[in-house]
């Protein structure tokens, strides 16, 4: 059924259709609307015996999810930013124990300086935690990916994050096609746990494992991610059969067939990139885009196949590996080992900096002329940076950077973009 609703509400409805049994969360922007929507549904009795557990922190939210999942319940939680970092230890435990929790990460920057706006620093910080990470391009895909994530996670006994851009998607009203309960039931079978804490058949979960077996347990986590790599295209195609649309999968190509330049990105910025690709194509430029849906497991072969005939690749990412450059770009480089082409990393949109079509036009034009630096920062205020560096040269007690910059640029109550 077509609906014009907020992204968070769309995800709440989709998670509700997945028949969760335990939901717990601690509020943090921009994730809050999702669990509020689910809380209302639990309260109204719409979700049957599903329990909504209020917890005192994100660490507790993940810990309760672990307990609930180990007891055989289909478990869901959501978080963002510092919330994800605060639960980091438990996030690793969930995957180490092989518990198929599904978690929405409403992607948001990490402080300091504190910032509530979107980038991908939070979930990418936990890229090695053993969780599957799927990135949504639209609110339609965000809601679809939750259904797919439960299916994949439970099949493999592996937790999955669905990553959606905070505010840009979570707070956007747009058209979505909400599936029926019958469709979701046809796609997502009842959860049949591989391991369950059952007093009738007691087991212990969470043993200490020494050097004699730790590597094997870890390798099996890696092997499961590789299985996910095989299952994701299959599950996406089954998804299409039931729901009638493309969602999920590993990567998605957009006008890449004869492209000399291919832009790689994740999440909602792909929409803006596609608009720019269309305009540049109209002007005769051979450019295309590659959207990475599965960030973990990393679809190295699919990425390589999509990119290897291009002359240059621009990885545009909302994350920064401080002291290195790109995070996604490093994965892409791994995928392209041995392939000769120009590779550019562009860091963009950190902390909610708008990624403008006009800036992308300039950027892609420069890329086409191979005039980009290996690592560059889209729309960075160099004058602002220079002022800070000069101040630090002039004075030992130069003071706090963020506060100085805010004074320099004269932040007022409202800026348009």
């Amino acid at each position: 059924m077509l609906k014009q609703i907020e992204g968070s509400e769309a995800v709440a409805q989709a998670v509700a259709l997945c028949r969760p049994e335990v939901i717990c969360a601690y509020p943090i922007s921009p994730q809050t609307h999702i669990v509020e929507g689910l809380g209302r549904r639990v309260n109204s009795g719409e979700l049957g015996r599903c329990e909504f557990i209020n917890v005192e922190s994100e660490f507790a939210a993940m810990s309760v999810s672990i307990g609930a999942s180990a007891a055989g319940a289909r478990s869901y939680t959501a978080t963002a930013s510092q919330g994800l970092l605060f639960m980091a230890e438990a996030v690793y435990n969930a995957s180490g124990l092989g518990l198929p929790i599904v978690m929405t990460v409403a992607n948001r920057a990490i402080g300091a300086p504190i910032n509530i706006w979107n980038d991908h620093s939070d979930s990418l910080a936990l890229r090695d935690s053993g969780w599957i990470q799927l990135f949504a391009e639209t609110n339609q895909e965000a809601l679809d990916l939750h259904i797919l994530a439960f299916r994949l996670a439970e099949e493999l006994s592996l937790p999955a994050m669905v990553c959606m851009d905070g505010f840009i998607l979570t707070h956007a009203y747009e058209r979505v096609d909400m599936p029926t309960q019958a469709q979701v039931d046809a796609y997502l079978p009842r959860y049949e746990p591989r391991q369950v804490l059952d007093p009738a058949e007691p087991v212990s979960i969470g043993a200490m494992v020494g050097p004699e077996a730790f590597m094997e347990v870890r390798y099996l986590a890696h092997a499961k991610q590789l299985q996910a790599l095989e299952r994701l295209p299959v599950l996406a195609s089954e998804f299409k059969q039931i729901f009638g649309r493309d969602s999920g999968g590993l990567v998605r190509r957009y006008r890449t067939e004869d492209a000399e330049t291919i832009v790689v990105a994740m999440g909602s910025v792909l929409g803006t990139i596609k608009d720019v690709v269309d305009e540049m194509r109209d002007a005769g430029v051979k450019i295309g885009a590659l959207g990475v849906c599965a960030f973990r497991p990393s679809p190295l072969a699919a990425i390589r196949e999509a990119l290897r005939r291009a002359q240059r690749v621009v990885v545009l990412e909302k994350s920064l590996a401080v002291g290195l450059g790109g995070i996604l770009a490093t994965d892409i480089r791994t995928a392209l080992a041995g392939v000769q082409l120009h590779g550019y990393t562009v860091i963009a949109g950190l902390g909610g900096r708008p990624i403008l079509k006009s800036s992308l036009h300039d950027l892609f034009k420069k890329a086409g002329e191979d005039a980009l630096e290996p690592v560059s920062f889209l729309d960075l205020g160099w004058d602002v940076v220079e002022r800070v560096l000069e101040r630090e040269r002039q004075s030992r007690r130069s003071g706090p950077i963020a506060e100085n910059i805010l004074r320099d640029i004269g932040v007022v109550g409202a800026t348009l973009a």
Partner: protein
Amino acid sequence: MFQVRIHGRGGQGVVTAAEMLSIAAFLVQRYAQAFPSFGSERTGAPVVAYCRIDDKEIRLREPVIKPDALIIQDPTLLHQVDLFAGLAADGIILINTNRSFAELGLGEFVGGFRPERLRTVAATELALKHLGRPVPNAALLGGFAALSGLISLASVIAAIKEKFSGKIADGNIAAATEAYEAARA
């Protein structure tokens, strides 16, 4: 694609206005995208929200930089925020005020605009009259329907009903309807 930027202050329902506008457009089978300017909203602080309307899927995620229409929910922002940034000279301007453009000191500024695309509506007064609260957003959408012809009053009313119920819906519908009539006159 038609792009609307709505300016107001926290508490005036700016974000809700953009959302209702998108619902109204959806109800007449168009694609629409509404989103806030992602600030930490506080009562009284300047707030911006956007709505795009098109006949095909809207993929663009940048803020609305070159609006086709502006809805200004609070004229006191005229001295605080660059409200007209990016607006084309044939753009639509709807301001919530009981004064005229000239009385607001905008006479000269709008000299080059098309007069039939400029309108003021005393939306706060209408909201107080019908709703008992100074929340002008629904009334302004009624005015916007008349001024732009982009959405119908019926779809505005349907959008109000999706967002509100009971007396609040009734009051907003009455305010929107009166604003629609006033803006059409």
